C-alpha cells in the first residue's frame, strides 16, 4: 500500500513538474515567435520605406510647391510612380500615422492625386498596431549634422530621415531606421504636368 502511495506521489510530482515546464516553455516560445513576427513585420515595412524615400526627388509636382514636407507624424514627397501604375513620371506620396485607439497607431501610405486633390488614389496600411511612429529629419549643415522635428518651408530634401517604430507590446524595442533620399536631380528642375517629367 505504501509503495503504491509513494509511486502515486512521485508520479503526481513528475506530472506536475513536467506540465508546468511544458507550459512555461510553450509560453516563452509563443512570446518569442510573436516578437519575431513583429520584428519581421517591421523589416518588411522598412524595406517599403527605403524604396520610397530613397527615390524622393527634390522638386514638387506643382510649380512653387514644396518638394518635401515633413512633421513628426507625416511626410509628403514626390517620387517616381510605382511600376504597377504602368506610367512614367512622378507621383505624390504621403506617409502618415493614423490613431487607432489610445496610444495605438497605424502607419499609412497614401498615393495622392497628381491633380492636387487631397483624396488619395491608393491608401495602404504599411504597419498596424504601433505604439510609436515618429519622423526626424537631418540636415548636413556647415556646423555639422543637425536634427529637426519638422521639414516645412525648406528647399530640397533633408539629408537623412529617421523613422522610429515601436510595435504595441511591453517587450517590444524601439527600432530607429535612418534612410537617405538618393535621387540626384537638379533642384532647378521644373515639373511638367503634361509629361509628368522634369524639365530644366
Amino acid at each position, binding site marked *: 500500500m505504501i509503495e*503504491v502511495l509513494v*509511486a502515486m506521489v512521485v508520479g503526481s510530482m513528475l506530472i506536475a513538474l513536467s506540465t508546468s515546464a*511544458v507550459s512555461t*516553455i510553450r509560453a516563452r516560445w509563443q512570446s518569442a515567435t510573436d*516578437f*519575431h513576427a513583429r520584428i519581421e513585420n517591421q523589416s518588411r515595412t522598412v524595406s517599403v520605406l527605403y524604396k520610397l524615400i530613397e527615390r524622393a526627388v527634390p522638386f514638387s509636382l506643382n510649380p512653387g510647391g514644396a518638394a518635401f514636407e515633413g512633421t513628426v507624424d507625416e511626410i509628403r514627397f514626390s517620387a517616381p510612380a510605382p511600376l504597377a501604375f504602368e506610367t512614367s513620371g512622378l507621383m505624390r506620396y504621403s506617409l502618415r500615422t493614423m490613431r487607432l485607439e489610445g496610444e495605438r497607431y497605424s502607419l499609412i501610405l497614401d498615393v495622392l492625386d497628381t491633380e492636387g486633390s487631397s483624396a488619395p488614389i491608393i491608401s495602404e496600411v504599411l504597419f498596424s498596431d504601433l505604439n510609436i511612429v515618429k519622423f526626424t529629419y*537631418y540636415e548636413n549643415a556647415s556646423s555639422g549634422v543637425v536634427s529637426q522635428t519638422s521639414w516645412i518651408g525648406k528647399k530640397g530634401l533633408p539629408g537623412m530621415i529617421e523613422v522610429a517604430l515601436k510595435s504595441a507590446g511591453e517587450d517590444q524595442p524601439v527600432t530607429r*531606421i535612418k534612410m537617405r533620399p538618393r535621387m540626384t536631380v537638379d533642384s532647378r528642375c521644373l515639373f511638367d504636368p503634361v509629361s509628368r517629367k522634369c524639365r530644366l
Partner: protein
Amino acid sequence: MWSRATSAGFTLLEVLVSLVILSLALSTVIPATLISYRRTILAADKVRADLLAQSIVEDVLLTDILRAETRRREEDGFVWVVDIRPVSRVGQRGENTAKLVEVIVEVSNGASGDLISRLSTQSVVANQ
C-alpha cells in the same frame, strides 16, 4: 459483473513504465522547444542588427567628409563598430581628388559578444 483484471486498476510496474515513457517523450520535446525558442530569438536579433547596421551606414554616409577612423558604441543591447578605410583614389573632381572609402559595420550581441551582422559598402567622397 466486474472481472478481477478490470477492477484491479494499474499495477505499480505499469505506472512506472508509463512514467518512463512520459519522461522520454518530454526529454525530447523540451530540448527541441528550447532550441526553437533560442533560434527564434536569434533570428529576431539578426533582423534588428541588420536594420541597425543599415542605419549606421546611412548615418556615416550623410557627411561628405569621411576620415579613416574606427567608432564603437553600445545601443539597444548591441555593440557596433564602424571602420572607415580609404580604398583608393578614383579620379579628379574639380581641384580635389575624389577617393573611394569602404565603410564596414559590425554589430555584435552586447552580452555574448557574438557577431550578428556585418555590412560593408563603398562610397566615393571628395578629398578634403
